[in-house]
C-alpha cells in the first residue's frame, strides 16, 4: 500500500451534470414512448440530447480519473476502492439478469404448465380450454392476440449444428474470454505487441458476436414469426438475449476504448485497472451467455 493519503476530490461539477443528463433521459424516454407514432412529437430530440450529455459527462469523468491517476494522486488503498466498486457493480448486474432468469424459470415451471391444466387444483386452465402446454411455446393461449412463432430457436440435431447461429456465438464469446486473458497476461509481462494483438482479436470476436446476434434477430422477425409480441417464448427470448446483447455492446465499447488507449501507450504492467475492469465485465457477459445458452436455447 502506498503511504500517500487517500485522495478526496475537493469538489466536482461532473455528478450534477450527470444528474441533469439523467433528468433529460427520463423525460425524453417517457415522452417518446408515450407519444410513440404521434405526428409532430419531438420528444426523441430530448432523448438524443440526454445521450449527448450522459456520454459527454462520462468522457470528462473518466478523463479526470485518468489524469488524477497519471499525476500520482491515487494511493494503493484508493485503487482497492475501485476494485471493490467494480466487483459490487458486476454483482448488481448479475442480480439484474437473475430477475429475467427467474421470470423464465417461473413461466416454464409453473405458469405455462398450469395454463395447460397441470397441477393439483390448478384453475387457470379453464381460461383457455384446449390450450396445450409446451416449451418452446409456439401456440399461445390467446393465439390471435399473441400469434406464436412458426419455429423456435432451439438447438437442432447435431449434424446441423453448424447452421445454428448460437453455436458460433458461443464459440466467439468463450474464445474472446480467453483472448482477453492473453491480452492482460501480455500486458503484465510487458509484451505490448501481444497485448495489442489479443485486444484486437477480442474485439473482432466481440463484434462478430454482435453481428451474428443481429442476424439472428433479423431471421427471427423476417422468417420465423418470432417477435416480442409472439407470446411468452418470444418475450423471454428477446428480453434475455437482448439485455445480454446490450451488455455485450457495452463491454465492446469499453474494450474498444481500452484498445485505443492501449495503442496510444496507456497502461503499464502494474497499473491498468481500466483494462482489468473491462476484462472482468467481459468475463461476466460471457458467463451470463453460458447460462443463457443452456436455459434459453438448449434445455
Amino acid at each position, binding site marked *: 500500500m502506498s503511504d500517500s*493519503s*487517500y485522495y*478526496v*476530490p*475537493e*469538489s*466536482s*461539477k*461532473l*455528478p*450534477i451534470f*450527470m*444528474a441533469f443528463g*439523467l*433528468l433529460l*433521459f*427520463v423525460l425524453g*424516454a*417517457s415522452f417518446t*414512448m*408515450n407519444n*410513440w407514432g404521434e405526428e409532430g412529437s419531438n420528444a426523441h430530440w430530448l432523448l438524443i440530447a440526454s445521450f449527448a450529455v450522459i456520454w459527454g459527462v462520462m468522457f470528462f469523468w473518466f478523463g479526470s480519473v485518468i489524469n488524477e491517476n497519471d499525476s500520482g494522486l491515487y494511493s494503493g488503498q*484508493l485503487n482497492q*476502492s475501485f476494485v*471493490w*466498486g467494480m466487483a*459490487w*457493480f458486476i*454483482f*448488481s*448486474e448479475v*442480480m*439484474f439478469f*437473475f*430477475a*429475467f432468469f*427467474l*421470470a423464465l424459470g*417461473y*413461466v416454464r415451471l409453473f*405458469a*405455462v404448465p398450469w*395454463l395447460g391444466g397441470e*397441477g393439483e387444483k390448478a384453475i*387457470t386452465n379453464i381460461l383457455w380450454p384446449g390450450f396445450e402446454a409446451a416449451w418452446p411455446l409456439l401456440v*399461445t*393461449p*390467446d393465439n390471435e*392476440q*399473441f400469434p406464436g412463432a412458426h419455429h423456435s430457436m432451439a438447438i437442432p440435431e447435431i449434424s446441423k449444428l453448424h447452421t445454428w447461429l448460437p453455436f458460433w456465438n458461443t464459440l466467439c464469446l468463450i474464445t474472446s474470454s480467453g483472448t482477453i486473458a492473453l491480452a492482460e497476461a501480455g500486458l503484465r509481462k510487458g509484451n505490448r505487441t501481444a497485448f495489442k494483438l489479443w485486444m484486437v482479436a477480442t474485439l473482432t470476436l466481440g463484434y462478430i458476436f454482435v453481428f451474428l446476434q443481429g442476424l439472428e434477430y433479423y431471421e427471427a422477425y423476417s422468417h420465423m414469426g418470432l*417477435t*416480442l*409480441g*409472439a*407470446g*411468452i*417464448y*418470444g*418475450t423471454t427470448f428477446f*428480453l434475455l438475449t437482448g439485455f445480454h446483447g446490450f451488455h455485450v455492446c457495452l463491454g465492446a465499447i469499453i474494450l474498444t476504448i481500452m484498445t485505443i488507449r492501449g495503442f496510444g501507450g496507456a497502461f503499464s504492467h502494474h497499473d491498468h485497472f481500466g483494462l482489468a475492469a473491462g476484462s472482468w465485465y467481459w468475463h461476466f457477459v460471457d458467463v451470463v451467455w453460458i447460462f443463457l445458452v443452456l436455459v434459453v436455447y438448449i434445455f
Partner: protein
Amino acid sequence: MSAVIDSHHDDHHHGPAKGISRWLYTTNHKDIGSMYLWFSLIMLFIGGAMAMVIRAELFEPGSQIVSPEFYNQMVTNHGLIMVFGVIMPAFVGFANWMIPMQIGAPDMALPRLNNLSFWILPVAFGILLSTFFMEGGAPNFGWTFYAPLSTEYAPPTVTFFIFSVHIMGASSIMGSINVITTILNMRAPGMTLMKMPLFVWSWFITAYLLIAVMPVLAGAVTMMLMDIHAGTSFFKAGGGGDPVLFQHIFWFFGHPEVYIMILPAFGIVSHIIETFSRKPIFGYSSMVYAIASIALLSFVVWAHHMFTVGMPIAGELFFMYSTMLIAIPTGVKVFNWLSTMFKGSLTFETPMLFAIAFVALFTIGGLSGIMLAIAPADFQYHDTYFVVAHFHYVLVPGALFSLLAGAYYWIPKWTGKMYDETLGKVHFWMSFLSVNLTFFPMHFVGLAGMPRRIPDYAMQFADWNMMVSVGAFLFGISQLLFLFIVLKCIYNGKEATNEVWEGAKNKGFEWTVDSPAPYHTFSSPPSLESLKTSS
C-alpha cells in the same frame, strides 16, 4: 502575543465552499449526508400531507373530500414517497455522516459517485410528483404496483413512474456500492470486522441487500415497460405469461426491501441504548449474526405476501415456516437490547426515549408479523387494515422512531449545538401517544374485516376510524414540532461538548472529534487505542 502560528494551508483542511455551489458540487460526506437528511425530511412532510388527505377522507364513512381516483393516487404516492423518499434516503444520510466517522475514514470511498447518488434522487421524485399535473393523473395502483393494474389498466404516467423507479434504484445501488466499499476498504488499522460499530455492521449488510435486490426491482419495472410499450406478455396469461409472476418478482425485491428499512434502525438503536445504559452492548457478536441471518432469510420468505394468490400447498408451508424463523434472530436482538438496559444506570434523554419506544413498538409490529405469517390465518387478515397496522408499526414507531432517535443522538455532533431537551421530550410524548392512537385501532378494524386501500367503509368501523384520523393529525403536527426543534438547535442551541453524552465515553470515534465535527474528519486514521476503556 498573537503570532500567526499556522499560515500554511493544506488542501485537506479546506472549509466548505460558499453558496449553492457547495451543495451542487460537493464531494464531502457530511454535506452529502446533510442533503440526504434534509431531502428525506422534506419528503416526510410531502408524504405526510398525503397521509393527512387519506385520514381526512376516512374521518367519516362516505365520500368526504376527494374523489376515489384521487384517493388511489394519494395511497400510492404516500407509500412510494415514504419508502423510497423518506426512510431509505434518511438512512443513507446517516450512513454518509456516521460511517466514515465511526470507522475512522477521511471520507466515503468514492466521493463523486456519492454526490451523484444523492442528486439523482430529487430528479426521480421531481418526476414522480410531476405526474400529478399530467394527463391521467399520478400513479394510482398502490405502492406495490401489481400488474395488470400497473400495466393494462394504468394511467399513461406509468412510463414516468417506471423510469423514476429506475433512477431511485440507480441511486440506491450507487450509494450502496459506496457504503460497502467504504466499509471494506477504509477502516482504521486494527478495526477488524468484528470490532466495527453495530451501525456500520447493519449498513454493511443493508448495502449488500440493496445491491442484491434493487436490480431485481429494475428488472420488474422493465418487464412492465415492455408489456406496456413493446407488446410482450410477461404478465399476460393470453401470451403464456402470468400476472402472479409480477408479484413473485416484486416481492423477491420487496421483502429484502423491508429489512433494508429496518436493519440500519437496529444499528442506531443499539448505539443509543448502550450509551444511555452506560454499558457496552450485550451480545455484540450475536447482534451481528442476528442481522446477517435476518438478511439471508429475507431472500426466502417473499411469498408470504401472497398466500392468498393460489400457491401450491408446499409453497404455503415453506414460506410460512421460513417467515416464522425470522422471529428467532429478531428475538435475539430484542432480548439483547433488554439485557443491555438490565442493571444499567439508565437516563432518559430524548434519543433514549425514542429508542425504548422503538424496542417496545417494533416488537408489537413484529408480533403481528408472526400472526400474518401463519398461512391459514393470513387468508383472513390479507388485504385488511390489520396488515396496514402491522407494517406501519414496524415503519413508523420502528424505522421512523429510530431515525428521530438517531437525529437527536447525533445532532449535537453534526451541528455543535444541543437541541432543546424539554421540547424534545414533548415531541417524544406527543409522537408516542399519537402514533399508538393512529395505528393501534387499525388492528381492530382490520380483524373485523375492514379492507385496505378503499376511500369508504362500512358504518361499523366509523368510531375507530375517527380515532385513527385524530391520532394521525396529532402525529402530523408533532413532526412539525420536530422541524422547529431542529431549526432551533441549529440557530439557537447551546454549545455541545465533544463527548456530548455522559455515556458516550469510549463508545466510538465520532465522540473523540470536535462538535461540530470538522469538515474533514480523519486525514490520517485514528488509533483504536484511543477508544480503550480507562477502567
